[in-house]
């Protein structure tokens, strides 16, 4: 337990000393919301079922944080640890690799929650976006969406031999996740096929959107996220190499 606490505390300090990473992860969704919210019409649109465009857009914005931390920061940081021999050095001590991975997940999880709270608060204050109407459903969709993306990042970290390899896989993957998650183009504007694919690819934005707007998230995509988390997470721990 002491080891876990120390690991989390020190990894958190290391992240804190890298302000570009954590500031971007926490503030970017809110900043994008403020910019787009002030550019586009705040009126309800009958074509969107009487919803405002921004109400549908806001759940997608969290994908920026989850994608940045899970698919970029996490695997690239672990790959650079491997490249510099940090992991190899740790492997000569009684430290357990799973604990290092858990410490990363805890830190990025907490950072994501902070980003989420900020996004909800900014949306509520600046654009009167209602709070998630199904908080429990939202929490489940958020946690599963986050862990499924982090599992992808962990697997990437586990198999990428170098910093460069991790980066060259992480960047395009990040763009795909952002696109399907509706960050570049609101999901209502995506073709049906892509939207359906986006329902089932991490982090499962439709579930976040449903829970925010009041309907319980659908079970199938949530189950999909859970399966991705467990399968890829287990694969990551099994294939994890110190060197």
């Amino acid at each position: 337990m002491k080891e876990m606490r120390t690991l989390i505390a020190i990894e958190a300090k290391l992240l804190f000393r890298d302000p570009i990473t954590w500031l971007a992860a926490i503030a970017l969704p809110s900043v994008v919301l403020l910019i787009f919210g002030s550019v586009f019409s705040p009126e309800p649109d009958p074509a969107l079922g009487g919803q405002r465009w921004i109400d549908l857009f806001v759940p997608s914005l969290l994908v920026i944080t989850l994608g940045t931390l899970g698919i970029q920061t996490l695997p690239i940081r672990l790959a650079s640890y491997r490249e510099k021999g940090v992991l190899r050095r740790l492997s000569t001590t009684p430290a357990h690799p799973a604990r290092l991975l858990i410490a990363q997940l805890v830190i990025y999880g907490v950072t994501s929650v902070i980003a989420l709270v900020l996004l909800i608060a900014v949306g509520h204050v600046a654009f009167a976006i209602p709070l998630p109407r199904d908080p429990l459903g939202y929490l489940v969709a958020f946690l599963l969406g986050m862990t499924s993306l982090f599992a992808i990042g962990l697997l990437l970290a586990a198999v990428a031999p170098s910093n460069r390899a991790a980066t060259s896989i992480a960047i395009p993957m990040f763009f795909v996740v952002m696109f399907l998650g509706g960050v570049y183009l609101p999901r209502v504007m995506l073709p049906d096929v892509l939207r359906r694919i986006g329902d089932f690819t991490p982090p499962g934005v439709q579930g976040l959107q449903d829970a925010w707007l009041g309907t319980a998230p659908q079970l199938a995509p949530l189950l999909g996220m859970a399966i991705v988390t467990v399968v890829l997470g287990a694969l990551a721990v099994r294939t994890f190499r110190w060197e």
Partner: protein
Amino acid sequence: MPFARTVRDAGAMNVIEVSDLTKRYGDRAAVDGVSFSVEEGEIFGILGPNGAGKTTTVESIAGLRTPDSGTIRVLGLDPHRDRQRLRTLVGVQLQESELPDRMTVREALELFASFYDNPADPHTLMDELGLGEKRDTAYRHLSGGQKQRLSIALALVGQPRIAVLDELSTGLDPQARRDTWDLIESIRRRGVTVLLVTHLMEEAERLADRVAVFRDGRVIALDTPAGVVSLVEPEQRLRFRPSAPIEDRLLTDLPEVRSVQRAGQTLVVTGTGNLIGAVTATLARHEVIANDLRIEQASLDDAYLALTGNRPARFAKELS
């Protein structure tokens, strides 16, 4: 700093026993039938040129690599099978192993201390290793010597019974190297057995009680540093300008002469025994005078180079 060499009695316990260790990478045997044992409390040097199998051997001892054949016992344990237990008993300092850029000295030591049940106090260790003033300095801002000391501190923070130090003075300036040597002597005074990997004869001579000299994956000499030097027949070198042309064969036929080389007008004759007497007698018989005659004797470095199969690179002591 003066220190007393520990007296090794016949009953001293072997803390490391390696027998017939072999490790192949593809067709090439990196380590080929290596055997040696290390007694408790000694500084044991593993000496040899790059690629001789030193690192593979110590990494097998540390449980980082699995040997193809042969057995290793470290404190009675198998490094591969009992790896988890050994990790608390053996502290390892690896080649080319860094820390996160922004991690401070204190954080690194506290983190590594948290891995062990009964760690050394990080603050005491920092002071002992001269890192007290650098405790809040980020890793990337440490000098090479400070990084090396931190690396040693991390190998010691778990209070290990054996410390494995791999090429720890490589890339250090002479002062930092000497400081590191003092440090290793102080580690031994704590009762920790030290396995020291180095390609520097000087380092092994200064620190090690015994050395195993590696070449092409084998141990070619296993003795005290002085014993290793005495294995090599002292070689001499004559350097002179002959007053008249002389055929190499006249000299190479002499039993004392090992080789004759020409550098411009200068002849360099290497050999053993009464080299100068044999050569000058031959020259005199052919009415040749040896101008600017100089005699050079081999140094300890040359003994090492001779053992590891390289030509002597330089002659330290010159007698004219």
